[in-house]
Every structure is written in C-alpha cells, then in structure tokens.
C-alpha cells in the first residue's frame, strides 16, 4: 500500500506529539511524582510507535517501543523517575526529532539506529532505574551465559533485542560468538587495524554488536581491545585462524554464546514479566488512571476544537485576492467622470465595509499564537542553564497572543538569541548571585502582549544588566566615538552601540557583559519584519528587551506623498506629524541639515536627494513640507513636495530580483494601476 499520501499528515501529527512529549517531560522533571504526566508521555510514545510502525519507519518504531517499555516499568512503579532517566527520555525525544527531520527532508527515516539510546533504555529496565532501586536488580532476569574463563574480557551486556536476534539466528543454524580482539600495544593506526578485522569478520559472519561502538572504534576511542558479537555458521577455528593472521593482533578470544538456553531463559522471564506489567497497567488504567486520563483528554479536546489543516500557500492566495479586491475598491472610489448618486455612494460604502471585514477575517485566519514559537524555549533554557551550571527559571506569559504566520516563522531565531544572551550573560553564576544576596534561581521572563496595533514581546532577566560605562569605553576604544562625544551621549545612545555589527564581533564581547553577541542580527531581522527592538537595563538588576512588531504585514494604512513627479508611500504608524516650515529654519550642523522642533534638534532628510529623483525646476521654495517620522523615540524630518493623503495600501514584495534595496521596503499598486514604492522609515531615519 502506498503510504506517501499519508506522509504529510504523519509528519504534522508527529511534530505535535513530539511537542507535547517535550512539554510533558519538562513537567515531569519538575514534579516527578505527577502520574498524569507519565500517562500522557506513555500515551504519546504509544501513539508514535503505532504511527511510525504503520508508515514503515521501523527504527523510529523500535525506539518508541523501547521507550514504552521503560515508561511501562515506571507506571507499574517498578522504578522511579530519576534525573538520569529524564535525561535519557530527552535523548529519545531528540532522536525522534531527528528522525522526523530526516523524514521531512528525505522521506525516509535514515539509517541511524540510535543503538546507544536503545541500549541505555534496556539497561534502565534491567537495572530497574539503576539509581533509585538497585535492590530490585535481582528480580531482573539478567542474561546468563555459559561460564566464562577468568582471563576473558567482561561479557558484553546483551539486551533483549540482541538476544532475539541470536535466538532467530540459532533457529537458522547459525551460532553466535563473542570475539574479543586485543591489539598489539605498539599498533599505530588502531582504527584502520580494527577496520581490517571487521572486514575479515564480515567475510564469514554478521556483526550484530560491538563494544565500544563502531563509531567510537572508527574515531579511535578505545584502548587496545574491543569485543564484537557475530553470527556465523562457521566454526570457531575459522575465525581464530583468520584473525590471528592479521598483523598487530596480539590475542583473540572467541567464545560461543549458548544462545538457546540463555535466550529461552531470558525470554521466559521477560514474557512473564511483560504480562505482569501489562496486567498491572490494565488494572491501573481501569482505576486511578481513568479519571485522570479522561480529564486530560477532555481538556485537550476542547483546546483543539474543530480545525482544518490548510496549506499556507492557499492562505497567501486568499490574501492576495483580498488585496486585489481592496485595490479595485480604492479605484472605484476614485473613479472620475461618473455621476455619484446616492445609491452609488451607498454601494461603495457597503463594499468598503465588506472588504475591510473580509480582510480582517483573512488576517485572523493567518494568525498563529506565539505559543508555537514559545513552547520550545523551556527545553532550550533547561539545556543551556544545565550546561552553564546555572539555575534559571523561565516564566512565560501571553502565549495566546497572536501574530501573522509570516512573522511567527521569522521570530524564533531572534528570540533564541535574546534568551541565550539572558541566560549566558545576563544571569550571574550561582556563587555570584549568592554573594549579591539575590535568589539563587535566576529569572527570565518571556512575555507577549498586544499594544495597540503592535504586538510586543518582552525578554527580561534579573541578572547583572548592561554596564553602560564599559560599553562607552569600548565604543571609544573602537573609535566609534571620541571622548567629547561620549560625554554627550545618553544611556540609550550608548546601548545602541550594542546593536552595531562591529560590536558583536568584538573579541572581548563577554567583558561587555556579553550583550553584543548577535544583537545586530536580532535587530536586522526584527526590522526586516517592520518591527523595532528597544532595551531597558539597570546595572545589577537586569535587562529587558522589547520587540515591537506590527500586527499585520500585508495591508497597511499609508500616507501617499509626491517627491518630484513620483509617488511614494509612508507607513502611517511611523508618522509623528506633518508640518510646514520656512525653508530658512533648516540649519546646518556638522554638514547635517537639522531643524528645531519642539525645542529639540531633529535631523532633516531631503527625499528628492536620497531617492535621486530627477527634478526639472530646482528652484528653492520658501516653505517646505516636512513629514516627521519616529523610529523608537527618535524623530526625523522628511522633506516632501506634496501630501496626497491617507490610503489603505497593499504591500507587494519587489521580488527576489530587487531584494536588498535599502530605503525601499516594498511596493504597492495604486487605484490607477500604477506602482508606488513604500519607503523604509527605519533606514531613512538613520
């Protein structure tokens, strides 16, 4: 049966399951006693096993199967949740994620067996959670081999899977051997020698296990001996002869694994064991489990509601059509030479209302809660803080705040950057925090909320904050400013240096409390989305980054202006004020034209010069029209020739061919069918 048609659904659902697995594991780590999480994890692993099995992804199915075994043991209280176990389950999650990525990219799960994880899982079961319940070990039916001679290397730990393979091989008349090869101590290219040995073995046999792992052997991560388990129908003597004929091999120890007895014993023990477990599980699910899991699934159901999966491209098409409609509506409004009767005006007004509602509706469909980005952060913070040896708590709020899908797709990386920064450089080390009298657990806050036509995402920490003086010193050292200039700079101006690319690549970034790392990237990305980044910081108390993003991207309110004979659009939300000033009010300060506006000096940009607009009559005018735009707190005056008015416009990309033009963000189509360019206030104001 052809499964390819289900592949997409499989991928989507797997991603969702992995996501919930991630959340549950994090929860479980916090409350190891919480059984409801365990049940949920078990359910997810079980579902994944079934799904991947159906799709023929056997490796994935295998891994989830073994996970399930461990979880089952947990459920039946045979072992307890331990940090080691959680780490192992996280490793499983990572492995499953990489399988999924592989499937997304290639359509197949790849050839990684993740044997290490599978072994660790088996080990976990065998040892009953090793750390917590060592006494229970006796109950586990450890594989028993025939008496080993004392000079032999330690027996390899064979897991259930290996034993099954051996068992099957035995049924086919093949024997299993454990072969330990000791290399000469003078051997130089150990891995190459090992390779030859493997090749030799493979002539007569199949290698099913190796200790250390094949990968480690290839990387020379072993002493002068290694052990493999092979299946073969040849006699011991054959291997003995072959291997001893290889140079630099000191000793070969071959031992027959008496498959049948060992396995039979093991299998019997295990079946009984498994049955017992299943029975217990059944009991459990019929009792305490029932109420909990029902409550769980009920909650889940209400949350998901009735949904339809739609390809994002289709939504783009829909949005494009709405855009077209709005352009035509604008055109209709401006149509000349027709009699504007009462009914005409009413119809146009009605059309306007419908198209606005339609636009809102389509935009809403494209909105995705920021949760989809946020929910990977707890895990990330956990890993980072573990690596750094810090204790960090991530508090998130406003996950339900919605943003346009295109923004959501782009916002992840900048946020990761900021969170990493906070974790790495913001939050102090444990000792430092203790000596400062701060709570040992550092706090990172991630908040999202709507503010007017913007969505604000805040990343705050209670760490050491930005040392403004240090930044200033660095800026002077780097020659970005001189001392006199530095004295006049505000705190904000100085912090702005951190967003300069040259700063982020500075060699001693960490000295500047590290805030330089990649901040320019964050800024570029956010500005590309039409947003801005702001920082608040207090030395010793922490920093707070604000990312301000527009709610919608595609359709905006704009001011149309004329520069020379060309029409340009400016985003209305960035406009502070429009004013007329006498031409003489413009003064020159250090070759920069400025004007006094409400007692502050603001720079003036002549759009005709910046945009290289061809002008026929270049005569000086007495009065100039100034559009004052704001970028964050900063104001800049743009000189235009004429104001045409406000209009709802549809942003259209300039396409790949013209990407990368500064000063222009995109274009729009006016009611008359002509193209007007939309100016990038952010770069003009720089």
């Amino acid at each position, binding site marked *: 049966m052809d499964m390819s048609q289900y592949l997409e659904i499989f991928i989507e659902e797997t991603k969702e399951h992995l996501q919930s697995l991630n959340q549950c594991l994090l929860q479980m780590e916090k409350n190891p006693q919480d059984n409801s999480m365990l049940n949920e994890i078990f359910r997810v692993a079980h579902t994944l096993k079934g799904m991947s099995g159906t799709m023929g992804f056997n490796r994935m199915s295998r891994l989830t199967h073994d996970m399930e075994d461990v979880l089952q043991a947990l459920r039946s209280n045979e072992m307890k949740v331990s940090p080691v176990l959680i780490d192992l389950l996280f490793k499983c999650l990572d492995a499953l994620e990489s399988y999924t990525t592989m499937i997304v990219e290639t359509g197949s799960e790849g050839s990684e067996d993740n044997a290490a994880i599978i072994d660790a899982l088996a080990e976990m079961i065998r040892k009953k959670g090793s750390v917590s319940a060592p006494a229970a070990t006796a109950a586990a039916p450890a594989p028993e081999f025939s008496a080993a001679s004392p000079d032999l290397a330690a027996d390899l730990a064979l897991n259930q899977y290996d034993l099954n393979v051996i068992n099957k091989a035995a049924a086919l008349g093949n024997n299993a051997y454990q072969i330990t090869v000791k290399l000469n101590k003078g051997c130089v290219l150990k891995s190459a020698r090992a390779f030859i040995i493997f090749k030799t073995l493979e002539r007569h046999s199949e290698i099913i296990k190796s200790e250390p792992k094949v990968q480690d052997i290839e990387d020379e991560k072993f002493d002068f001996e290694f052990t493999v388990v092979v299946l073969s129908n040849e006699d011991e003597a054959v291997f003995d002869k072959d291997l001893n004929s290889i140079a630099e091999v000191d000793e070969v120890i071959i031992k027959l694994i008496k498959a049948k007895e060992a396995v039979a014993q093991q299998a019997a023990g295990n079946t009984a064991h498994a049955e017992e477990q299943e029975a217990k599980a059944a009991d459990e699910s019929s009792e305490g489990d029932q109420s909990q899991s029902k409550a769980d699934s009920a909650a889940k159901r209400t949350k998901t509601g009735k949904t339809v999966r739609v390809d994002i491209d289709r939504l783009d098409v829909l949005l*494009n059509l709405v*855009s*077209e409609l709005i*352009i035509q509506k604008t055109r209709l409004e401006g149509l000349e030479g027709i009699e504007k009767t009462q009914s005409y005006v009413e119809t146009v007004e009605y059309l306007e209302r419908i198209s606005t509602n339609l636009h809102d509706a389509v935009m809403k469909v494209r909105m995705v809660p920021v949760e989809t980005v946020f929910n990977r952060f707890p895990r990330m913070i956990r890993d980072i803080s573990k690596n750094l040896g810090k204790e960090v708590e991530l508090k998130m709020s406003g996950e339900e705040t919605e943003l346009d899908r295109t923004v959501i797709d782009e916002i992840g990386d900048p946020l990761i950057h900021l969170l990493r920064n906070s974790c790495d450089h913001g939050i102090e080390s444990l000792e430092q925090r203790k000596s400062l009298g701060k709570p040992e657990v550092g706090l990172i806050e991630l908040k999202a909320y709507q503010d007017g036509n913007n969505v604000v995402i805040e990343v705050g920490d209670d760490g050491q904050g930005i040392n403004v003086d240090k930044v200033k010193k660095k800026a002077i050292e780097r020659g970005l400013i001189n001392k006199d200039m530095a004295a006049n700079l505000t705190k904000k101006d100085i912090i702005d240096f951190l967003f300069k690319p040259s700063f982020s690549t500075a060699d001693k970034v960490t000295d500047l409390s590290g805030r330089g790392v990649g901040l320019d990237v964050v800024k570029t990305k956010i500005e590309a989305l039409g947003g801005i980044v702001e920082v608040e910081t207090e030395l010793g108390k922490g920093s707070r980054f604000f990312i301000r993003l527009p709610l919608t991207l595609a359709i905006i309110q704009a001011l149309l202006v004329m520069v020379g004979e*060309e029409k340009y659009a400016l985003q209305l939300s960035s406009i502070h004020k429009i004013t007329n000033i006498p031409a003489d009010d413009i003064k020159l300060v250090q070759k920069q034209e400025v004007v006094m506006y409400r007692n502050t000096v603001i720079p003036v940009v002549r759009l005709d010069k*910046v*945009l*290289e*607009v061809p002008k026929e009559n270049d005569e000086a005018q007495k009065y100039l029209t100034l559009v004052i735009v704001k970028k964050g707190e900063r104001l800049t005056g743009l000189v235009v020739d004429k104001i045409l008015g406000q209009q709802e416009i549809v942003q*259209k*990309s*300039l*396409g*790949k*061919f*013209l990407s*990368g*033009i*500064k*000063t*222009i963000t995109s*274009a729009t*189509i006016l009611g008359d*069918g*002509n*193209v*007007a*360019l939309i100016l990038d206030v952010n770069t003009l104001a720089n």
Partner: protein
Amino acid sequence: MADQKILEAKKFLIFRLGNEEYGIDIHKITTIIEKDMNIARVPKLPVFIKGVINLRGEIIPVISLRLKFGMAEEVFGPDTRIVIIKFEEISAGLIVDSVAEVIELDEDTTESIANISGELSMDYITGVGKSGGRIITLLNLEKLVSLEDNMGK
C-alpha cells in the same frame, strides 16, 4: 529517430534590438506586453533597470536590454514590447525594439560561441542560431538576470 529530433529542437522567441536579432528559450517567457506601461523608477539601481511595473497585481522589474548591452537608450514606439520572463522564482521584463517570430532551432542549426567573437560580453550568450541566412544571438537569461550583477554589490 524523428521523435528524437523534435525533442532536441528548441523553440526560440526572436526579437530585435537595433539591427541585431536575439533569441530566448520560449519556455522561460510568460507573456509579452504590447501596451505602453507606466514604469515606476526605483532609486539606487543601475541605469539599465528602468524600474518596476504592475503586471496583473504582480510587481515586476523591467530591464532595458539596450542599456544593458551598451546601446543607445530605447525610444518607446508602436513596435516596442516588454517580454516578461520567469525562471527560478525570478520574474523580469525585458524591453526590446520589436518581436519578430518564434522559430525552432536544433543542434544542427546552432553553434557554440567558441568560434565567434563579438562586442557583447560572452557571458550573456549561449550560442548562435542560423535560420535561412539570418544570424540569431541566443541569450543566457540566467546570466543576464543574475542578481549580483544587477545589484552592483
């Protein structure tokens, strides 16, 4: 055999710039615009990019082939056309003096550029086609519309 021949033959749109004839692979052409379009100038671009036009709601950059090839700037007349090409997600319009016809060229009637030298930068040419005594320069669109080249960066 006959079938194979057809597969190998490619159709080319032939257009004129001054006295010369050029050809473009017809599969890369989406449409040809006849009517005079308002081209919106885009600042800070090389001169041969005349600006952008609105083609049924899509913004498309327009290139003057004459300027690109170092000829005198075109004067829009009744025969002037904008040939819209599209490949690998890049759309662009090429301004040409006039569009002649579509002809079929195969390996026998095309020659590689190794034997020919001309004023035009070799980069933009894939070969030369011969059809009934006419010499047609075949353009390499990928190179012609390559991004680095046009952005001047």
